[in-house]
């Protein structure tokens, strides 16, 4: 494009000077200011240009301007709607996330509570069981102690009688009951059985 343009420009300048030279002999119609048509042309130009300017500035251009403004406002409105919708969507997503999180933590708490309750129940059960076993154990021990005490009481009596009989047989002396009992008690105490 460029070389062609330069070439054409070069040719043009040469030719226009040739044309200007030719004008001397024949006269350029454009420079023929004596011609009434050259003047009337300007008058008509003024009229046409003025009317065109008035029609364009008062009627045609505002129309195009309105269309452009309408388009701009439509696009702006659409973009605003998109922005609003996007904000609403973002808010909804945030709300959903928060709700999910809340539900999750609620469920977690419930599970923890249930586990806690179960643990407490188990502990309580174990405690009652232990208490019952302890009671039974204590009772059994008491019974054993009673039986032992009874057995020890019988032992003392048997030992006293046996000791009195043995003393009588061996010595012929009739040992008094209280002294025998005291001797037996001392012997038992010495053995740690009283």
């Amino acid at each position, binding site marked *: 494009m460029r070389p*062609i343009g330069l070439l054409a420009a070069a040719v043009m300048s040469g030719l226009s000077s040739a044309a200007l030279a030719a004008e001397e002999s024949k006269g350029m119609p454009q420079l023929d200011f004596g011609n009434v048509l050259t003047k009337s042309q300007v008058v008509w130009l003024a009229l046409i240009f003025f009317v065109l300017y008035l029609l364009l500035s008062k009627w045609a251009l505002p129309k195009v301007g309105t269309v452009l403004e309408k388009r701009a406002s439509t696009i702006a409105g659409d973009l605003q709607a998109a922005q609003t919708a996007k904000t609403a969507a973002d808010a909804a997503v945030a709300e959903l996330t928060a709700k999910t999180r809340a539900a999750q933590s609620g469920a977690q708490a419930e599970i923890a509570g249930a586990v806690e309750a179960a643990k407490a129940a188990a502990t309580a059960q174990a405690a009652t069981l232990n208490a019952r076993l302890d009671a039974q154990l204590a009772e059994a021990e008491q019974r054993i102690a009673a039986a032992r005490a009874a057995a020890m009481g019988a032992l003392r009596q048997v030992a006293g009688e046996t000791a009195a009989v043995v003393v009588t047989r061996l010595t012929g002396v009739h040992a008094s009951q209280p002294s025998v009992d005291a001797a037996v008690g001392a012997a038992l105490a010495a053995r740690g059985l009283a």
Partner: protein
Amino acid sequence: MAAEEHAIDALGQFKLTTALGPLGASVNFTQSNLMMLISGLLILGLMYFGARPQAVVPGRLQALAEMAYEGIRKMCIDQIGDEGKAFFPFVFTLFMFVLIGNLLGLLPFSFTYTSHIAVTLSLAMTVIVLVTVVALRIHGLHFFSYFFPAGAPKLLAPIIIPVEIISYLSRPVSLSIRLFANMVAGHVMFEVFASFILMMAASHALGSFGVVGAVGPMVLNVLLMGFELLVAFLQAYVFAILTCIYLHDAVHLH
């Protein structure tokens, strides 16, 4: 087309005649004015049918109308500043009028009104009068300080002031000569190459070789048409942007 051999009537195409029959002749309505009328109707039609669908997604015509509207509006605001909005309709009218005039002139059998210095000078004078009026209205008599830059030595005033005045007055001249010369040069070249085609093809000396040789200027004319389309846009753009720059100067006074 120039029929005579060795005499190319490259300027006859710019000759004014009356249009629209006796009615047009009675009011000296020229074919140049007819083209102005047609281009004015085309511009209004483009704007009217371009704005009519009012579609959010524009069709071709609507996109064209809106491209012109927004492009020139942006140019006004970029070059002049926010005050440019007030001048937008004027710059738009000027740009479209010149552009459509240039483009219509490229059609066969049409007439290029922008190839008439009287027309381009009138448009440029309109611009410069507007610029001066705007400058006077905004800055009052302070406007005349424009002709003597601050800080210049007072001794040089007798030289600087006439130079600045001539420079200011040369604006409409340069504006109009640029458009006029570009359009005339292009159309003269079309005429010359087209005449070459006929001359070579009809030449007895060259015979059938002439017909083959005539392809050369034909190709040149086709290339020239592309170049002239570019020039048509470029010159309309330059006309409009220089108007904007002058308006900027008027509004901001440097």
